[in-house]
């Protein structure tokens, strides 16, 4: 950290004295590079941090440049008034372009944003208000306390200050709660919703942030060049911008800046061979995605990983035993769950038909049944991932069907997933931090206005995350990537993450799948302790030994309906259950013997 601050200081000073060594053309090139760096930071926030494919970044840039040009030359506003209005316009366009992200992701989003960017270029090249293909010239020089900003040297310092602030803000967002939620959404939007991150709001936030950075870049560009024309905002430039972000490393804000500055300068050096430059950029992009997907920014980490692996034979991290919580945290006994008459259809397939069950507060309930009997579907409905076709579910009297997963997380509902949905590109610590962070999205007002509040909350979260990792015996793995850990540890991390949300009702979907005998024993101990700390637990499980020994009551599903409900001993001997579960020819004495004390 200290090295990093030192490096920033050195770079800052170097940037401050840079103009002394540059000619008039050189400073112009650098000024343009700063504009592109701002654009790249915005694109990095949306794509690298938020995982939203955004091919409309040049349109945000263009909207704000054109807004400044139109407002100053045609409406007679002053430069800075126009600049503020231009930022508002860019943000509004950001919201508009972001709306499709609520309904679609990945390549669909890519094509829609690209289409909207094309629509924008089409409009500016044809409209009379934008001056058509000729563009708009004669944008006034921005006045600034009598400093003559027609000098590109002095303009550079304005840009540098704005850029420094913007970069700092982007880094601040990326490394604190908001950015962490965005990264969680990028890695797994379903799981992000389940731990309480409001995915729709976060997607919009990603686009609004991108558009604001595009807007600032547009204002600076308009003030610098004082002339706007459609070709600056072409798709070719969009792809150039994309190349900058990919080559630099989309998940690192600094990487985006490095990529943008490097490619802007290279483009100027190769101005006489622009076609070959484009060819080269394309080739480098292809090589980068195949060979170094984290870009230039990821290379130091890869080198250190290789070096470290050579130097130390093995990292001695151990999974510590789970430490049961001493007493119920808030004295409660958990929430009751009531499911009444739920049906769910997928087209013709009736996954659930008129399922009712009720789970008392503080109970451990097992849900068993053959594969395809609708167990996970039931969990998906209760946790807000699916909507119901009929019926309703309620937690402590509050109806939960029809609400979004993140709202349910706030009501005290948490879950794990059958196939593990950890946030793969975040550390173990970050996985837990996302879930611990219960702040509302409204609290994001503090980002621009009271950053110290954010920092304080951050420190508090880290202390609590340390305690939680300690409790689950995961402290040694805090900085590890989840995917690098053994399966059993990943399963335990998922439970720890669910518990970090402070639930009153916990849904575990096959928590013992893939665990060895010893780990199943530990799991049983963990689940009991969770219940004792005041959380109702419902678990789907195929390991009958575990279900029989752990659960207070068991509900049996078959072909989408409840066929039995009772204590393990009652349920295990019912002929219907045995038939559904084992087929009627099996010898069931073993299970009966295991269950009876």
């Amino acid at each position: 950290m200290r090295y990093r601050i030192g490096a920033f200081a050195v770079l800052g000073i170097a940037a401050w004295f840079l103009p002394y060594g540059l000619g008039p053309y050189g400073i112009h090139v650098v000024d343009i590079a700063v504009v592109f760096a701002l654009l790249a930071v915005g694109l990095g926030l949306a794509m690298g941090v938020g995982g939203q494919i955004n091919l409309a970044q040049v349109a945000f840039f263009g909207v704000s440049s054109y807004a400044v040009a139109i407002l100053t030359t045609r409406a007679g506003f002053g430069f800075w008034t126009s600049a503020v209005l231009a930022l508002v316009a860019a943000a509004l366009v950001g919201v508009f372009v972001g709306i499709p992200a609520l309904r679609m992701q990945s390549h669909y989003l890519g094509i829609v944003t690209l289409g909207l960017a094309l629509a924008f270029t089409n409009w500016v090249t044809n409209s009379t208000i934008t001056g058509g293909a000729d563009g708009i010239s004669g944008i006034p020089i921005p006045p600034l306390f009598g400093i003559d900003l027609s000098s590109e040297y002095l303009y550079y310092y304005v840009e540098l200050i704005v850029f420094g602030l913007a970069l700092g803000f982007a880094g601040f967002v990326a490394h604190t709660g908001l950015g962490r939620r965005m990264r969680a959404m990028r890695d797994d939007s379903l799981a992000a919703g389940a731990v309480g991150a409001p995915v729709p709001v976060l997607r919009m936030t990603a686009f609004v942030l991108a558009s604001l950075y595009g807007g600032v870049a547009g204002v600076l560009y308009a003030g610098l060049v004082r002339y706007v024309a459609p070709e600056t905002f072409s798709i070719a430039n969009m792809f150039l911008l994309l190349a900058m972000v990919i080559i630099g490393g989309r998940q690192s804000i600094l990487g985006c800046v490095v990529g943008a500055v490097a490619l802007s300068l290279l483009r100027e050096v190769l101005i006489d061979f622009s076609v070959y430059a484009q060819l080269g950029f394309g080739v480098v992009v292809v090589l980068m995605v195949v060979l170094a997907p984290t870009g230039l920014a990821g290379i130091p980490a890869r080198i250190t990983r290789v070096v470290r692996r050579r130097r130390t034979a093995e990292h001695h991290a151990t999974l510590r035993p789970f430490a049961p919580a001493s007493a119920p945290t808030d004295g409660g006994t958990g929430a009751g769950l009531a499911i009444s008459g739920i049906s769910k259809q997928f087209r013709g397939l009736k996954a659930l038909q008129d399922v009712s069950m009720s789970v008392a507060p503080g109970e451990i309930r097992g849900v068993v049944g053959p594969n395809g009997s609708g167990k996970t579907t039931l969990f998906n409905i209760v946790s807000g991932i699916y909507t119901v076709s009929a019926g309703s579910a309620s937690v402590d009297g509050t109806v939960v069907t029809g609400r979004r997963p993140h709202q349910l997380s706030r009501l005290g509902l948490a879950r794990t997933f059958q196939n593990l949905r950890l946030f793969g590109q975040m550390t173990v610590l970050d996985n837990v931090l996302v879930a611990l962070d219960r702040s509302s999205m409204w609290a994001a007002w503090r980002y621009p206005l009271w950053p110290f509040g954010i920092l304080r909350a951050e420190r508090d979260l880290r202390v609590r995350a340390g305690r939680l990792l300690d409790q689950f015996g995961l402290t040694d793995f805090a900085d590890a990537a989840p995917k690098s850990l053994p399966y059993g540890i990943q399963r335990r991390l998922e439970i720890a993450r669910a518990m970090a949300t402070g639930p009153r009702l916990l849904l575990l979907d096959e928590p013992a799948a893939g665990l060895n005998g010893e780990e199943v024993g530990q799991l049983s101990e963990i689940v009991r302790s969770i219940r004792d700390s005041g959380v109702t637990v419902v678990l789907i499980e195929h390991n009958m030994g575990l279900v029989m020994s752990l659960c207070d009551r068991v509900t049996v599903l078959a072909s989408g309906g409840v066929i039995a409900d009772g204590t393990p001993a009652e349920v295990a001997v019912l002929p219907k259950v045995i038939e559904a579960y084992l087929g009627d020819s099996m010898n069931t004495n073993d299970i009966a013997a295991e269950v009876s004390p």
Partner: protein
Amino acid sequence: MEVFFQTLVGGLGFGAVYALVAMGFSLVYRTMGLVNFAHGQVVMIGAYAASTFYMSAHVPFFVSIPVAMLVTGLIGLVIERVLRPLENKDFDLMLIGTIGFGMVLESLATITWGATGHAVPSPVDTAPLDLFGIRLRTYSLVVLGIAALATVALVLFLQRTKRGAAMQAVAMDHEAATAVGIHVGRSNAIAFAIGAGLAALAGALVAPMLYVNPTLGGSLGIKGFAAAILGGFGNIPGAIVGGIAIGLLDSYAAGRFQAYSELVVFLVFTVIIMIRPTGLFGERTVNRA
């Protein structure tokens, strides 16, 4: 009324071309889940290759098409081979990789053929047919016919041949396909090559209708892509309907909004896709938790 039908007929020729582009997209998407953003540029290379053979080597137009398809088929193989390490791993990265290939192809075209482009004379120069007062360009009919033939051939290939069945199997579950002995990489490569071949066919057919230049791929690709999404991604009949729909929308917007047609087309497309993200015939995919 006559204007309406004239617009309709005018849109059909382009619609058939968009349908071919969309079919290429869909074929690659359904077999490997990848959206090839370089597809438009492959169309452009196809247009250049076909028109260059046609005009400079003086071979008949309909001979130059298979040659162009061969050229782009090879390009498709190269793209697939380079991006193979990412297959079934990170689709967003693959998408960006194909954008990189698009940049490469566009600059290669500029280096080879220059930035200015050329016009291609129509290979069928009979007078337009007159049908109840509506003028039908003969060439549009040829385009429609060839597109229909290509569609039938593709569907027969997918449904009646062993190789086609293997590709369907890979599309449904690449792991299970590997387990029964299908070489997934090779199957993907063939899908990519066929997709690129369809792109060349589209490019060659559209060449006499447009001015061929290196940036041709951008808007053709995006409209073909929009057609594929509109029809329901990965759905071959859907791609045709989507292509025709975009062609008609395009032709109508050009008549009604002139220069703003592109703006209108993409806004309408965005609205439709917001209402039905899975397109007209797409299957609703369920999030599996």
